[in-house]
């Protein structure tokens, strides 16, 4: 008798397990209309560029944060996921398609699939060509292929124009300082920005840093930095923390205020909005080319 009572939770568990394994996920919801939930900020930007308003069910928890999202204003008209949310918090928006990145939690993706919802995982987003491919992929799901081609056409035109302006320009030497001890080197979105704005990322060429890494602080003082690239709302407040932070406070570029400003989201952008970053950086580093 006592034994049975003590076994009760075990039996409950086993029963649930058996039943769970036998349970079938429901068939996909009826209706041809597409409703998309975007789980990462990169896919937010792609989605808002291509989808009709009724196709957007919810955006990622960073969509309205100007530090990470290039479309904070537009994102405000749509619901937002919570940080660390689970599958249920996505399913409550009744999506037909959910957009993930290759670093999204495996169990979250599995749960969404098991609910019978279509899943799209983006695993290449380093270069602009990757972005074009992602746009086309997403457009196919939304039935917005024409819109995507138009957008890609615009992007390519801007890129050609930018390249033309920067053809005879001399490369400017830059770094992107950070207050938490790591700066971007090769294979980072900042490197991508520099490559398209005729800038030389000294962290990569002189520091040989890969990804985000700790720079050699003492050596860094000897680097011939022309400009530091900082992120924030305005130049003075963005540069201010570095004026009192070693080793940056000793750098001539910081002391003399040779800094350029980027919107914070552009330093981590993986969508087509990175072109805004290329243009913004190029314009501030090479004003003579934009006369």
């Amino acid at each position, binding site marked *: 008798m*006592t034994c049975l*009572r*003590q076994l*009760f*939770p*075990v039996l*409950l*568990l086993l029963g*649930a*397990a058996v*039943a*769970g*394994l036998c*349970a079938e*996920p*429901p*068939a996909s919801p009826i209706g041809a209309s597409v409703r998309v939930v975007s789980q*990462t900020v990169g896919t937010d930007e792609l989605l808002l560029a291509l989808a009709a308003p009724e196709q957007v069910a919810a955006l990622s928890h960073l969509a309205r944060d100007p530090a*990470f999202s290039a479309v904070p204003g537009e994102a405000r008209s749509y619901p937002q996921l*919570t*940080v*660390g*949310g*689970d*599958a*249920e*918090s996505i*399913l*409550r928006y009744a999506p037909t398609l959910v957009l993930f*990145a*290759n*670093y*999204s*939690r*495996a*169990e*979250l993706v*599995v*749960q969404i699939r*098991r*609910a*019978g919802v279509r899943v799209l995982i983006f695993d290449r987003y380093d270069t602009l060509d990757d972005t074009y491919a992602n746009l086309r992929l997403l457009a196919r799901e939304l039935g917005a292929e024409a819109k995507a081609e138009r957008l890609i056409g615009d992007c390519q035109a801007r890129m050609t124009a930018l390249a033309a302006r920067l053809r005879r320009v001399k490369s400017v030497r830059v770094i992107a300082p950070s207050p*938490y*001890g*790591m700066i*971007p080197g090769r294979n*980072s979105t900042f490197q991508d920005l520099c490559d398209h704005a005729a800038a030389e990322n000294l962290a990569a060429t002189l520091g040989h840093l890969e*990804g*985000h890494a700790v720079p050699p602080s003492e050596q860094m003082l000897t680097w011939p930095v022309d400009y530091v690239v900082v992120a924030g709302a305005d130049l003075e407040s963005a540069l201010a923390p570095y004026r009192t932070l070693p080793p940056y406070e000793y750098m001539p570029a910081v002391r003399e205020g040779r800094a350029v400003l980027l919107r914070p989201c552009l330093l*981590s952008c993986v969508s087509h909005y990175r072109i805004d970053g290329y243009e913004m950086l190029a314009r501030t580093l090479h004003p003579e080319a934009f006369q």
Partner: protein
Amino acid sequence: MILSARLARLALPFTLLVLGVLAVVALGAGDMPLSPARVWAGLWHRDELAATVLWQMRLPRVAVAMLVGAALSASGLVMQAYFRNSLASPGLLGVSSGGAAGAVIAIALGWAAFSLWALPLTAVVGAVFATGAVLVLAQRGASTERLLLAGVALNALLGAVTSYVLSQYAGLYERNTQILFWLLGGLEDRTWEHVLMGAPILVAAAALWPLGRPMDLLCLGEREAQSLGVDVRWLRRRLLALATVLAAVATAIAGTVGFVGLIVPHVLRLLVGPEHRRLVPLALVGGAAFVLACDLAGRAAGGLRLGIVTALVGGPFFLWLLRRHP
């Protein structure tokens, strides 16, 4: 012993009842708003969406919560008997920090995004490796003092590994967030695979069940117990193995959740006395109920991580209990 003998006998059925109630409440709680009618319909597969949510999401979550609570609580109880100290916890010998190191490496290197088995498996490997390393470091009969010192050393070392990985991936916001969230413990998106991975907990609990009486003798002195007929070497090895398996698997499927192994057995012992024949089943059921309750409380409070809730709940309650009954 705070409860009278009569009340102590009712402790287990009462705790089972509480567990049952909490499980029912947990099935009705989640981000997807489901009315009780829909929950009922979903349980019987009459409402497809509700059925998916209940059977694929909420039931596994409840099951994992119960498994983790039972495992951590039982592991703490065993450690307290093993070290003859009611303040011992499962993490003393490096199980949690080993699991954390393994899991953090899996997330950072992207294995965790590849397959949902990767993270728990690396966590278990890390946990078992840590305990094995402690035993090797302690060596030769592994006396209590040597084990504790080796555990301290390994906890420090593995903590450094975890911190190193965290620092290296600081630039990757998403991954860092995942690591941090895992380190704070959490039960979102638990699947039936996680429940399956938690099955060793049931096996270990069953193996622990008959060891209650020898544990009584052991915790009053190893040599005395040996003289009374307990095979102390065998028992200590068995207890250590069980405590490790329980804590390692629990950490693997829910992240590092602290305080359950320290608080629950200690509080139960204060309430119903130190007899392990009573404490073992009570720790299993009580731990399950405790973690389930903490998960519900955390979700009600707007998404507090499980590890934070257990600490917030466990600490002050423990202090209160001590003040009432020194």
